[in-house]
């Protein structure tokens, strides 16, 4: 008889977090079926391990064999993990997947995780994340000045460059804080997940996204555990991770479309807005500046930034004559 394996997976999300949590369940089911029960995955959600942002450390130390999370959460520990989730004004989901699988992205990601005894794989995409809920309309750069916004991470730094005050608010108090104007704006994910927090009831302006055009989650695997698996099970893992990622992208598209239809119908107060061009330009410049700073930090960061920039340029040129051209055509005939 062949050996059977059970991998323990820690995910950053709660047990029934929609879309994200479905991705790990989907992965676990596929692995078990494809391996005819030789490989099982036991999922522990955040309510069990209580360490949503401890997934990196726990997988690294071998307390868990695998994790499901997002690479940019580890920016404070390993700065170059920042680049493997989504970057402001960066690639869209299709372009970024192409970069991962065909443009050298995977190799760079493994290089960053290797010293930490882990492998990282793409783990599902949310698509373009919305730019956030605002209680007042943003008409010019002046309106952003001193605006208090819950916006973490690198995107928060970009916002800070154009005058926003990034503010920490405990997730449990976000709703009350926004409702009472303790803060002016909240960035979360997209319609499907934002709807659950009820922001549509208290904020009228829903801004389109620019800061996370293609948020990619990740599967983390402890390297020793990976090496213990026979080659066929490794291949099954690879395929299951890749299909789970693809499924999440289409699931996100579907769930967001449904949720958006819902918001439009039940909350006619909600207006979709785009930041004016001068704000985008200022943020674009701020982003360039911060990226330059990051690239100057170390040689590896410089290589990653360069690889992403070059790939974006090349693939965007094609996106422009294909996807964009098609959408423009549709605009004209409708």
């Amino acid at each position: 008889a062949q050996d059977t394996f059970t991998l323990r997976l820690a995910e950053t999300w709660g047990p029934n977090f929609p879309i994200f949590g479905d991705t790990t369940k989907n992965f676990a089911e596929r692995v078990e079926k494809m391996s005819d029960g030789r490989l099982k995955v036991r999922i522990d959600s955040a309510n069990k391990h209580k360490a949503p942002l401890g997934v990196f450390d726990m997988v690294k130390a071998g307390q868990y064999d695998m994790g499901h999370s997002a690479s940019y959460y580890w920016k404070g520990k390993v700065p170059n993990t920042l680049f493997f989730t989504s970057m402001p004004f960066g690639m869209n989901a299709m372009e970024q997947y192409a970069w991962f699988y065909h443009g050298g992205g995977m190799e760079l990601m493994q290089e960053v995780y290797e010293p930490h005894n882990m492998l990282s794989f793409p783990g599902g995409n949310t698509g373009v994340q919305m730019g956030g809920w605002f209680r007042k309309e943003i008409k010019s750069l002046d309106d952003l000045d001193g605006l208090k916004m819950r916006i973490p991470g690198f995107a928060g730094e970009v916002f800070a460059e154009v005058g926003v005050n990034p503010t920490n608010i405990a997730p449990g108090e976000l709703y009350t804080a926004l409702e009472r104007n303790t803060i002016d704006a909240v960035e979360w994910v997209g319609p499907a997940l934002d709807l659950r927090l009820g922001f549509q009831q208290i904020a009228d302006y829903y801004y389109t996204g620019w800061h996370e055009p293609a948020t990619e989650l990740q599967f983390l695997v402890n390297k020793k555990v990976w090496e213990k698996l026979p080659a066929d099970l490794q291949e099954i893992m690879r395929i299951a991770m890749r299909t789970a990622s693809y499924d999440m992208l289409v699931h996100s598209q579907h769930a967001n479309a449904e949720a958006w239809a819902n918001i439009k119908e039940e909350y006619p107060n909600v207006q979709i807005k785009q930041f004016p061009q001068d704000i985008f330009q200022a943020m674009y410049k701020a982003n360039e500046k911060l990226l330059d700073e990051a690239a100057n930090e170390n040689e590896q960061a410089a290589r990653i930034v360069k690889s992403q920039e070059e790939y974006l340029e090349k693939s965007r040129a094609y996106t422009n004559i294909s996807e964009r051209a098609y959408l423009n055509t549709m605009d004209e005939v409708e």
Partner: protein
Amino acid sequence: MIGMIMFGVALLMLMVGFPVAFTFGGVALFFGVFAEGMDLFAFMPYRIMSVMQNTTLMAVPLFIFMGVVLQRTKLAAQLLTSMGRLFGGLPGGLAISTILVGALLAASTGVVGASVVAMGLISLPVMLAHGYDKRLATGTICGAGTLGQIVPPSIILIILGDVLGLPVGDLFKAAVIPGVVLIGLYVVYILVLTRFKPETAPPMPDDSGLSRGKEIQAALLAIIPPLALIVVVLGSIFAGIATPTESSALGGVGAVVLALIYRQFSFQMVWDASKDTVKVTAMVFAILIGATAFSMVFSYTGGDYLLEEWMLALPGEKWGFIILAMLVILVLGFFIDFVEISFIIVPILAPVAEALGINMLWFAILIAMNLQTSFLTPPFGFSLFYLKGVSPPTVQTTDIYKGVLPFILMQILVLALIVIFPEWFGMSSSY
């Protein structure tokens, strides 16, 4: 099964009288190491870290600090005795005042540890000094302090919103009437009880020779400053000046300012208040850490899967399902903490409820009411431990156990009313 045996052992060990926090931790250690090995405890630093980064819990030390300063400067006593005086010769005035102050605190925090301990500091000494029955006094405080869970903002409602995918705002709105009804019922209970047993809650003595009118005037004047402080705390949330957690800091600093105005301020007083705060805070958090070790061992030894299995055996008919689900949650609430119930049990019940056409908002409020009760039920109700931690030695654990009984019954009564007459509470039981 290990988890179930562990509960039994913990219960026995608690009775021995070793500190609760370390009994939880120690029992967890034996079962954990025996079942899974030492390395299970490598998860502990992460769990402690999650308490450290849970900034909502910052309300605990901050509210305790406010309570201690109000107590040390005698402003708390002044607030409650004056409020009690407004009731004139009516017995039970202090208890009703406690419930009303507790309701105000409940509206500014969703953390039970914060409100129970603060209420224990503010009103227990006053009630005891005026000859209140120990059971009535402690029961009232636990009942009033636990209101924080149903009166918005509330942690339970936020977690349920997340687990059930309901907008937090809808839940907050739906919880208002049940909360107000519960507060009203508490007050009615005190009025009825003291009518038959006036000796359990003696009325405030007459303020030497003042006319009733003058007395009321004096009482109102004395109430204003400390009450204003609590209103400021609450107001700062409504005005958007502070988040609920931050408002507790305004309360603490405000209490010190009041002390200054009343010439009660000294650096020694602040330092002593800080010492008391640290001790009580440490007592509360040690229990949280002991309990997190306990629930870690419970779930990593398969306890969560066992619970899941039990849940799947519930009947598939609407009223049978509702009643049994409520009973199971009530019983589990005796042993397991509400976060675990919300994350393990509720997700299993939710799809069944949805399939039965049950209104999820109504269902969520039922669960929230039910989980609130778990803070009060012996042996593991945290409110009981917290209040015991700040009680004088003359108040024994058994007094508190007996004291909360009527309040548990009232909560169950309101729960039953919401089940039977949802329309009274502005809801409907199905879509």
